[in-house]
């Protein structure tokens, strides 16, 4: 029995440390640590609630717009306002462009390099991988596509900037819509760029994922974990979520979501005991703790989110839960989102009001739930006299990469690592593949407050 540490697990956003116990050539146990703390929720208290959209998106540079949308939804509820129909379309188009950017970059720059032969320049060379199965010609094609994908994903961010002002970190989303005037030339430009991105997804991305799946069929059997899937749903249209909210336990039937079933544990996180004020003390010396990430649970269970969970809950992907299923579901979702964006673009009317003027009431409370690229994202806020009194965020990486809770229940990714065969304990190629299939981003993972007792369901 040996213990191995991989830190940093590269090709992901912000650091992740993983420790595995290997027994008889398989992973017997695993511990995943988020090793950076910033404490955004502490910072939110005392600020103007209108700033929540622009401030909280600074949590994450890769999924900035998802935080903006979640913050915007929380403010809508707190202020009692609604986006205009065209404003909602613009919000969707900004978020959609960010999804396309993220999914392309995740596959071609982060995940794919586990399966293809790369040579040439640093930081891509050197490569130490004993399990490269693609013939050279096929591998070279995929690497060529990766170079193209760098440009196409930048184009997706240009689409984002068309209505968001700049990318990453858009600046136009407000609770009643988007501050950008709807102009025909912008619609044209978005449409033209979208066609290019869509063509790349259809011609390269989907095929490349399936190529890898063809050469690595064993990864359809690896990294299943609990099979507990959760999504808050996303992309609103006329008050309805186009991707529905829901939860499926143990790859089972899809059930509705009840927010009061969400709890959070700090058992294995570096925080001291909670005081009555709701404030959390940092405690890097805490016995038994190994991560800055806390452990959210749904009905006491560890659940995972992301494109696979969304596909499962919307009834569009039921092949299985595994490393390869996550990659395939992400590619299929890109196609769906690109098609949706095309539809929304067609509904936009030049000159239609993209926002309306509002005056925030004295006090308010709101919950903003949406899925981000990598899973379920929730913002909870309360404010009084124009100042935020409480702000809580539960991030997708909190769900996916949570550590153990009081009952010793492993987080979803820790569980997915159990039983993974290990050929060379000094070079844990398989472990990296499992972890990267979740599209990890530890920028957003760490936060420091308790979940309020929320009672409402998700629309």
């Amino acid at each position: 029995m040996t213990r191995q540490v991989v830190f940093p697990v590269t090709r992901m956003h912000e650091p992740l440390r993983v420790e595995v116990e290997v027994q008889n050539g398989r992973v017997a146990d695993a511990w995943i640590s988020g090793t950076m703390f910033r404490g955004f929720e502490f910072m939110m208290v005392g600020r103007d609630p209108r700033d929540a959209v622009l401030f909280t998106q600074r949590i994450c540079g890769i999924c900035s717009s998802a935080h903006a949308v979640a913050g915007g939804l929380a403010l809508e509820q707190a202020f009692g306002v609604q986006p205009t129909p065209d404003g909602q379309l613009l919000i969707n188009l900004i978020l959609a462009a960010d999804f396309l950017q993220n999914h392309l970059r995740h596959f071609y720059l982060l995940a794919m390099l586990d399966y293809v032969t790369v040579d040439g320049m640093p930081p891509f060379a050197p490569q130490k991988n004993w399990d490269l199965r693609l013939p050279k010609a096929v591998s070279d094609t995929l690497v060529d596509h990766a170079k193209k994908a760098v440009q196409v994903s930048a184009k997706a961010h240009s689409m984002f900037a068309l209505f968001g002002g700049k990318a990453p970190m858009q600046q136009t989303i407000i609770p009643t819509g988007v501050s950008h005037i709807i102009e025909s030339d912008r619609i044209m430009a978005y449409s033209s760029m979208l066609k290019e991105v869509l063509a790349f997804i259809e011609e390269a991305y989907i095929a490349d994922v399936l190529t890898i799946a063809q050469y690595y069929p064993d990864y359809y059997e690896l990294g299943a974990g609990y099979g507990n899937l959760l999504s808050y749903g996303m992309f609103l249209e006329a008050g309805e979520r186009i991707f529905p909210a829901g939860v499926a336990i143990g790859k089972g039937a899809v059930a509705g979501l009840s927010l009061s079933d969400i709890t959070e544990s700090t058992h294995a996180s570096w925080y001291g005991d909670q005081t009555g004020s709701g404030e959390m003390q940092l405690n890097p010396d805490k016995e038994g703790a190994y991560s800055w990430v806390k452990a959210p649970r749904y009905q006491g269970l560890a659940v995972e989110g992301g494109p696979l969970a969304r596909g499962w809950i919307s009834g569009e992907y039921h092949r299985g839960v595994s490393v390869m299923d996550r990659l395939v579901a992400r590619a299929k979702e890109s196609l769906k989102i690109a098609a949706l964006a095309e539809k929304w673009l067609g509904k936009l009317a030049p000159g239609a009001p993209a926002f309306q003027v509002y005056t925030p009431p004295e006090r308010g409370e709101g919950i903003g739930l949406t899925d981000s690229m990598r899973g379920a994202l929730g913002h909870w806020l309360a404010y009084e006299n124009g100042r935020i009194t409480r702000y809580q965020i539960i991030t997708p990486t909190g769900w996916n990469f949570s550590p153990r809770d009081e009952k010793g229940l492993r987080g979803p990714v820790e569980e997915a690592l159990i039983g993974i065969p290990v050929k060379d304990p000094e070079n844990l190629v398989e472990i990296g593949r499992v972890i990267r299939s979740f599209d990890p981003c530890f920028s957003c993972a760490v936060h420091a407050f308790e979940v309020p007792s929320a009672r409402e369901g998700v629309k």
Partner: protein
Amino acid sequence: MLTRRNFIKLCMSATLAASLSESILPVLRQAQAEKQAEKPPVIWLELGSCTGNSISLQNAVDPGLDEFLSQAIDLKYHWLLNTVQGQDAVDILLDTVHKEAGRFWLVIEGAVMTAANGRVNYVFSNQDKMVTGLQAIEEFAAKAKYVLAVGSCAAFGGPSAAYPNPGGAVGVEKVVRDKPVINIPGCPANSDWITGTMSHLMLYGIPELDSLHRPKLFYGRTIHQLCQRRQLFEDGIFASFPGEAGCLYKVGCKGPTTYADCPLRQWNNHISWPVKAGAPCIGCTSPKFPDSSMPFYEHFPDISTPSTRVSVKKISAAFVALGVGVVGTHLAAGVFSRRIHQHFLDGTKPSDPTPPENLAEVKQELDDLIRRQNALLSETKQLETVAAKEKKSWARRVADFWRTEDKDGK
């Protein structure tokens, strides 16, 4: 080869039809062919950050990241991109530090997290020994040829250091004291600012910096100076809500104190920039961002942090009441706790991290504050004069400009 003068012209040119890197790469290629510039080994270290600046670099267009990496720099270590992982990646990092000492560039993204002696931010482990970001930067910076702080967190602490700064985030300059740090702030930094600064370093060495160590070729002028809506400001036509036509000053634009060339360069391959998209500038290249520019949607004489709000009018009233030179306790307390930021008018003044320790220093700060206040008042006076020249209901316009309450009288 391009002269330095022409290079700067190229970078500052408003008429560039394409991204900056497209114009610069051929020059670099030529210089490298003539052996005037060599491909420098680069270590990109992420500390307390959101990865936004790496994403911004990936947004470089025509040519993109791929070509910049193959033709401009040797990016030895960046955990977002390294194919190898764990100890193999750490070996590359440490090899570069030791073998290329004095040659490699250290690029820092994210603030240095100092709480719990840096233990809130481990960045790698070497032979099972955990290393914090604070330790890494202290060790590596001493051996680096250049230290670049990319993004506002690395440059000044940025959002990671927002009040009450639970992670103890500070800018790289606060930790690396024996070596000049080149700051490329922004939230995130525009990809052109990153590639442009790196290209200048390669060809001509350190570019001319302002007092906050930002390259003047990108941060030499204010947003306000370059803004397409500047004429609307002069004409006194103001938007009363983000997204409306008119100058966005009254809905919180921090353009007058923010040094960056966004209006000219724009973002994501010349697509847009916030004011063009109807959103006020939030001053993301300034020191003490975001605290110094929040609330984002309040116009900027309102000085505000999570715990206090002092408007220019109140400050002026206080001076009238007490007599200028008398230290009002309220103001003194504000200065003491660093709640009143110095950078509202003087964006290029270096930030001073230590609170004043004695009365003389407090007085000095207050004098500075008064000086800036006067400058601000004279600027608005000018505005009033312009408005006064307008025949049509000028008094209403001035009153409207100073009106801080909204339509409901709040």
